C-alpha cells in the first residue's frame, strides 16, 4: 500500500455513507459530490474544507466510472474531518508512481474526446487532500483512501 501525506482519521464516525457506481455512469460522480457537499454544509464545515472534499470525491468517483467496472465511494464524516474511500473492481493500476504523475493517463481516445483523461485526477486528489493511500492489484481492483482534516485553532 502506498501512503501519501498525513495519517488518516481514526475516531468513530458520526456518519458513514456509501454511493454505488457502475463503470461508464458519468453522471453519478457529480451527483455524489454535490450531495456530499450539501451534507458538509449542513454540518457547518468551512467552505475551504468543503471545496477540497468536493474535488476529491468527484475525482475519486470519476476514476471508478472511467477506469473500473464497478465500485463504491464510502464517505466517513466526523467533527475533525472527512475520509473518502473509493473501492472498485477493475483493472487495477500497474504502476502507481507513474499514475500519480501529472498528465499520465491510460484513458482511451474516446474518453479523451469527452474531456476526461487529462491525467490530472490523482494529482488533484493529492493536492486537495491532507493525505491519500492507494492499494491496488492488477486484474482485481483498486482502493483509494483520502482524508481532509480540519485544522484546529
Amino acid at each position, binding site marked *: 500500500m502506498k501512503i501519501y501525506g498525513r495519517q488518516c482519521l481514526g475516531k468513530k464516525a458520526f456518519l458513514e455513507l456509501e454511493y454505488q457506481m457502475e463503470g461508464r455512469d458519468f453522471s453519478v460522480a457529480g451527483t455524489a*459530490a454535490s450531495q456530499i457537499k450539501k451534507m458538509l454544509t449542513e454540518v*457547518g464545515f468551512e467552505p475551504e474544507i468543503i471545496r477540497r472534499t468536493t474535488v476529491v470525491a468527484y475525482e475519486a468517483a470519476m476514476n471508478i466510472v472511467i477506469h473500473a467496472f464497478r465500485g463504491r465511494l464510502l464517505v466517513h464524516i466526523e467533527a475533525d474531518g472527512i475520509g473518502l474511500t473509493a473501492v472498485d473492481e477493475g483493472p487495477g493500476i500497474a504502476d502507481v508512481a507513474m499514475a500519480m504523475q501529472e498528465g499520465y493517463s491510460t484513458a482511451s481516445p474516446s474518453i479523451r474526446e469527452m474531456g476526461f483523461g487529462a491525467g490530472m485526477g490523482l494529482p488533484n486528489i493529492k493536492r486537495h487532500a491532507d493525505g491519500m493511500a492507494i492499494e491496488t492489484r492488477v486484474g482485481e481492483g483498486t482502493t483509494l483512501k483520502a482524508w481532509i482534516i480540519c485544522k484546529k485553532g
Partner: protein
Amino acid sequence: MSAVPEYFHSVTLERDKCKGCTNCIKGCPTEAIRVRDGKAVIIEERCIDCGECIRVCPNRAKAALTEELKDIARFHHPVALIPPSFYGQFPSQVSPGTIAAALQAIGFHRVLEVGLAAEYVTEAVAGYLEEHPAPRPLISSACPAVVRLIQVRFPSLADLIIRVEAPIEVAAAIARQRGKGDMGVFFISPCPAKVTSIKQPVGRAESGLDGALSMAEVYGQILPILREVEPLPGYPQASHVGTSWGRFGGEREGVSGRSLAVHGIHHVINICELIEQGCLTDYEFIEAQSCPAGCVGGCLTVENPFVAETNLRHTALTYPRGQGHRPKVAGEVLLLTRPITPRKIWQLDDDTTRAMEKLLLLKETEKELPGLDCGSCGSPSCRTLAEDVVRGRATINDCIFNLRERVRRLAEEMVDLAGKVPPAMAGGEGEAIDFE
C-alpha cells in the same frame, strides 16, 4: 441608520391570491419556499430574488416590489437608466432615440444607456483578470441573483466572483457626474434581483440609485406614444460591446481567453457545481445570468426571451463598433469595496457535534419517506421535509404517504384488537362452548 430589516426582498407574496398549489416550491433554486396552512411562505434568509416563483405562479400571487412611475416626481430631475434588455422588448425598427424620447415624454428629464457603463465594466473586468492570474475560473458579478445564489448555495465560490461593480451602479455614477440639483436616478429593471441590489447591495455600502421601476410597467406606459415622438438626438450613446450585455453571451464577447456563458438559474447551478468539483479550471471567465437568454428574459420583461434576444441582437448591430467619446469615470467607482460573504444558513445546529447528530437524524428520517418528492407536505422534496423535521419546522406526519401508512397500521391493529374480545363478552365467537 434607518430600520432596514436584515433581508430586504423585492419578491413578495400576495397572500390572498395564493392557493397553496405548491408550483413555486419545486422550482425555487435555494429551497426557500414552503406551503404552510395552505399558503406559500418565503424563508427570508434563503431567498435570492431570482424571480423563478414569479414566473411559475399560476395565480400571480408572487410579485416584485418596485417603485412606480408616480414615484419619480419626488425628484426635480428624474433620470432613467435604460438597460440594453429594454430594447429587446421592441422590434429593432424602434430606435433607442425613440425609446429615450418616449421616456422623456412620460416624465424623465434625462435618459442614460446602461450599455455605456457596461463598456467601462468590460475594460475593468479584462484588467481584473490580468491582475488576478489565479485561481480560475473567475465569475461575473453582473447578475445579482447569481451573486446571491453563490452566497447561499456555493460559499466556496464567493472568492471567485470578480470584484468589479455591475453596470447599473457605474451608470448611476456617470449620471450623477453629469447633472446637479435634486436628481433621482431610476433603473428600468427586468428583474426583482436588481431592485433588491439597489435596496440592499452586496459588495458595496450603498447604491447610487434611488430606485427601480418594473420594465413591464414602463413598457406599458411608452408603447402607446412611441409613434408620436420624434427620436432624440445623441443616441445611441453606447457602442456595440456594451449594448450586447443584455443578452446571454454578450458580456463574454468583451473578454479575451477561454470563457463560458450560462443562462437560466438551474443551468447556472449546474455550472457552479462543476466549478466546485474542479472541472472548469481551464476557463478564464464565466458569464452567468439567472434568466433565460439573459436579462432580456428577466421575469419583469414582456417579450418572449428568445424573441427579445433576437431583437436586441439586431438593435446592437446598429450601434458603432468602436467606442466614441466617453466621459471619464473614477477608477474606484468600478470596484467593489466590501467583501462578498457567504450566507451561513444551512448549518443544522451552531454546535458542530449537535449538527452532525441532526444530520444523522435527517438521513434516518429521509429513509422513512417514500422518495416521491410530490410536494404535498409543503416542502419541495422528501429530503427537504426531512430537513424541516430535524429543524423543528415540520413533522413526519406531514407526509401524506407516511400518514396513510400509519393509519393503515393503526387500523389493522384495531381490527386485531377488536377480535380479541374478553371471553365473558364473547358471543358465538372466541372461546365458543360447544353445546352439542
